[in-house]
């Protein structure tokens, strides 16, 4: 196993489309819920322990070899608003393109053929991690970290927040990322014996509500 592959996969410059998405930060900034580093940190902590945990567990399960189509259905059931399902599939398709060029693998080809419009992004990322020789916990780390680095980077652009402060927020949340990644990997491990229901389904009502509202904004900087 090459740990360096995790750095490649988790790099914010990995060309899989993430730069155009704010992870809910754009509507939160507009509503005044994010206005500085402290409020960014609270927002990120909430997203990490809800949407981040669910996504990390899906990725860990895919990296562990669970059927990606079952995981894709599980992701649908855990994503109640169409705006976020569409975003997850669009980003999944972009991740698939990058992953197939980076770590070619028949398993990626098979999922791409079965979901030509894109599978949910964490499922694709988990499968890409598996193709790169990474462990389920690695995949969980990549997704958990991405669930907060996306909003933090977007907030730097949206609020002209000091980038040092934004990066410090990510560092403050390191212990939370550790916790969520471990929870996610542990849940993924239980899927073999307990079935898909072992995966977490933590919901964040405001992320769902505001994502669907944001999708209808006529003018916005970020796709989501």
């Amino acid at each position, binding site marked *: 196993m090459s740990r360096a592959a995790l750095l490649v996969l988790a790099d914010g410059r990995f060309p899989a489309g993430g730069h155009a998405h704010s992870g809910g930060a754009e509507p939160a900034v507009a509503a005044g819920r994010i206005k500085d580093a402290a409020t960014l940190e609270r927002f990120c902590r909430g997203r990490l322990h809800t949407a981040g945990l669910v996504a990390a567990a899906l990725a860990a399960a895919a990296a562990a070899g669970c059927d990606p189509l079952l995981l894709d259905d599980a992701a649908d059931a855990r994503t109640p608003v169409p705006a976020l399902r569409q975003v997850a599939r669009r980003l999944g398709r*972009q991740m698939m393109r*990058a992953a197939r060029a980076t770590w070619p693998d028949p398993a990626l080809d098979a999922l791409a053929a079965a979901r030509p419009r894109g599978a949910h992004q964490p499922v694709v990322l988990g499968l890409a991690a598996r193709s790169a020789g990474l462990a389920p916990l690695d995949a969980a780390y990549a997704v958990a970290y991405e669930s907060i680095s996306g909003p933090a980077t*977007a907030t730097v652009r949206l609020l002209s927040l000091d980038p040092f402060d934004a990066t410090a927020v990510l560092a403050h949340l390191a212990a939370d990322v550790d916790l969520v990644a471990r929870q996610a990997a542990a849940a993924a491990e239980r899927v073999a014996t307990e079935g898909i229901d072992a995966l977490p389904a933590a919901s964040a009502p405001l992320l769902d509500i505001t994502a669907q509202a944001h999708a209808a904004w006529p003018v916005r900087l970020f796709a989501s």
Partner: protein
Amino acid sequence: MHLDHKDTFPERYTYSAAAPVRPDGTRRALRIGLGGPVGTGKTATVAALCRALRDELSIAVVTNDIYTREDAEFLLREAVLPPERISAVETGACPHTAIRDDISANLEAVEDLEAAVGAEGNGPLDLVLVESGGDNLTATFSKGLVDAQIFVIDVAGGDDIPRKGGPGVTSADLLVINKTDLAPYVGVDLEGMARDAKAQRGELPVAFTALKAENGVRPVADWVRARLAEWTVGPA
């Protein structure tokens, strides 16, 4: 049953512009990028190109906007192409990232347009124009996204831009210097601009345009025709 997407699409996923053929073995559409600073007339050039070429070629446009889809909406309002031939890529406030560093969304938009236009039964696309949102002088397109790129500047931006250079000015396959009709009003020396451009670009071509004039886009349209002729006879 899945209600989010009842329609099925062929699996496409070419990695990049490096693959010149479609899955069926035919040569895919030529992809030309248009970049340049804000307000120089990129969208107007795209609109004029569509009007000049749409009767002879099957064309589609991808826009990369800063705010969602403003350029796409302009093209729709101007009705230069039917709506199904225009696609807007959202760039998270960074068009240069979407056309150079992470081209995944643009590649998907291009492929979806090829699929959508093909599905209409109008035959395959000949030409896809990929327009970047107004950015700075360093913004260039990835070779993974486009086959050739046009950089659009204008005389109102000052006659020192060709001299200053930058990747767009020096390396674009075609440099367009637009709004030549304004030269007398802004005190710009067109011959000096041409000399500076030549110094920066060597043999690479430069086109002076005044889009407001009748057939003002013609030098650009002719250049596109020539690129397309080369592309079509390339190896399948």
